[in-house]
């Protein structure tokens, strides 16, 4: 069964004095399988946050339907097994970390006997055990993100939706969030997250969808998407003569030179073999030889350009 399903989801906002329509989503169809990490990617203003807000009941769709599990998102019960971390860590600053989690645990109806233990466990897990008595207003951005994650996991959710969970975090914080997302998958939970940090998404996602200008333009398993149009080899060499560098540049699909070092991308193995012979003959040193791989960033940029964004 799908953990999240969107069918023909559209949202039009009316802006300004003349109520000019602004189409944020234009018929989004999507299905997220249970127990997977799903990356929802796209440039700014593509419709990622609007989709997430519809899933979490903060925005009403203009058309189409959305389900969490088998419940439509209009029903508050659909959020019973949902954990959500919004973008921007907007929390009740007057509360301490502990009071904040306590309040949300009570809203979720977690019995008193379980509440304290579950909060303590989560505070330890997100590394806030020593700061739980501090008011959130005194937390750093990373700490706010972590207390937000703790509240998102309070209800033992089957589906966790994270809006830009790595935004604004330092490398250590990003790694911690990444590890936590992987841990959630190991526990059998579904994680749906939006991100601008494509390298992180590439590392952890099973499936991704690329949304551009309110339309999903690409969706599928990462290996399949990045595997398409793959092929070719990337060769990095040092100490080539100018003449040989020019020659190999002409034979390659792409070439970049920096000081003594040169990178060539060849589209087929025969050309690579020939290039390797040329390099050896010229007295150059082979630094690396790896299969050329399209990155997630290439995919998103490519698809954004194809629909005229950026």
């Amino acid at each position, binding site marked *: 069964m799908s953990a999240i399903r969107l069918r023909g989801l559209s949202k039009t*906002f009316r802006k300004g004095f003349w109520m000019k329509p602004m189409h944020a989503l234009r018929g989004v169809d999507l299905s997220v399988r249970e127990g997977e990490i799903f990356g929802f990617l796209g440039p700014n203003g593509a419709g990622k946050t609007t989709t997430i807000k519809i899933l979490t009941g903060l925005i009403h769709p203009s058309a189409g339907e959305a389900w969490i599990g088998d419940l439509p998102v209009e029903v508050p019960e659909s959020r019973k097994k949902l954990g959500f971390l919004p973008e921007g860590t907007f929390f009740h600053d007057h509360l301490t970390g502990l009071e904040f989690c306590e309040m949300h645990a009570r809203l979720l109806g977690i019995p008193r006997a379980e509440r304290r233990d579950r909060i303590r466990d989560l505070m330890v897990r997100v590394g806030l055990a020593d700061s739980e008595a501090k008011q959130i207003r005194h937390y750093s951005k990373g700490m706010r993100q972590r207390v937000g994650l703790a509240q998102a996991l309070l209800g033992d959710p089957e589906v966790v939706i994270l809006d830009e969970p790595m935004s604004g975090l330092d490398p250590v914080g990003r790694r911690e969030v990444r590890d936590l997302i992987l841990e959630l998958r190991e526990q059998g939970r579904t994680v749906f997250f939006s991100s601008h940090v494509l390298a992180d998404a590439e590392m952890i996602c099973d499936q991704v969808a690329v949304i551009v200008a309110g339309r999903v333009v690409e969706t599928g398993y990462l290996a399949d998407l990045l595997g398409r149009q793959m092929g070719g080899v990337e060769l990095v060499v040092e100490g080539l003569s100018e003449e040989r560098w020019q020659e190999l540049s002409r034979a390659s699909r792409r070439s970049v030179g920096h000081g003594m070092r040169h990178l060539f991308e060849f589209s087929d193995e025969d050309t690579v073999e020939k290039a390797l012979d040329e390099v050896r003959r010229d007295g150059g040193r082979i630094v690396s030889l790896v299969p050329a791989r399209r990155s997630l960033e290439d995919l998103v940029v490519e698809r954004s350009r194809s629909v005229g964004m950026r």
Partner: protein
Amino acid sequence: MSSLLQILNRIMVLAQNTLREAVRNRLLYNLLFFAVLMIVSSILLAELHLGHSDRIYRDVGLSAIAGFGSLIAIFVGIGLLSREIDQKTVYIVLSKPIGRWEFLAGKFVGLAGVLMVQVVAMGACFLGVLWLQGAEITGGLFQAIGLIYTELVLLTALALFFSTFTTSYLAGMFTLAFWVVGHLLMDLRTFGAHSEVESLRLLTESLYWTLPNLDRLDLKAEAAAGLTSQGVHVVTALAYAACYSLGLLLAAASLFRRRDFH
């Protein structure tokens, strides 16, 4: 479907959070300080005035409770809902399995609790001044304070209603305007009745029946004069305020349910 007990529990959690937020708000203490200062200053005013000192204590004290209570209801009340929306803390609350009306109800109950604490604190200070000065404490004073609290609760419902569809600034201005007009409705109606312009008469009459008539909840003058009003008058005023507040809350819930949080 959620059981009634679960719904009540969630409303109480949100009310407690509202109460906690208000208690940690400095504006509230500033307003309270000035209210207490004004109540205590009635002693000085009575000294400067010849005769009727009891009336002055009561007049100034009740006016301070009503005036500062209204400011607290309007500005702290609006702040507590608008801040949730402006600062987007509402996102995380509404993404929980709770109905939007429960959120509004929680805010309303919390604010009513904040106002109750305020009125009790100001009322205790006021009665303390009267007792220290040896002035008579009549039942009318309790009636007046009770109806001041009722008016504040109605103002809170009004503030919540406006906060559901407009900015905090406009919600504050609208509520303030309704508070002023609500105390002038009787005069407006009398003015309209004496007018020869039919449309003006109709306008003042319709305003009288649609806007909250806060004069019905005002027993300050009677209480200051040492009078106690008839129970039926108090009960009617209470019923009027309850119905009006409920109507406002239902309208607010309907608007809030349809609202998108960008």
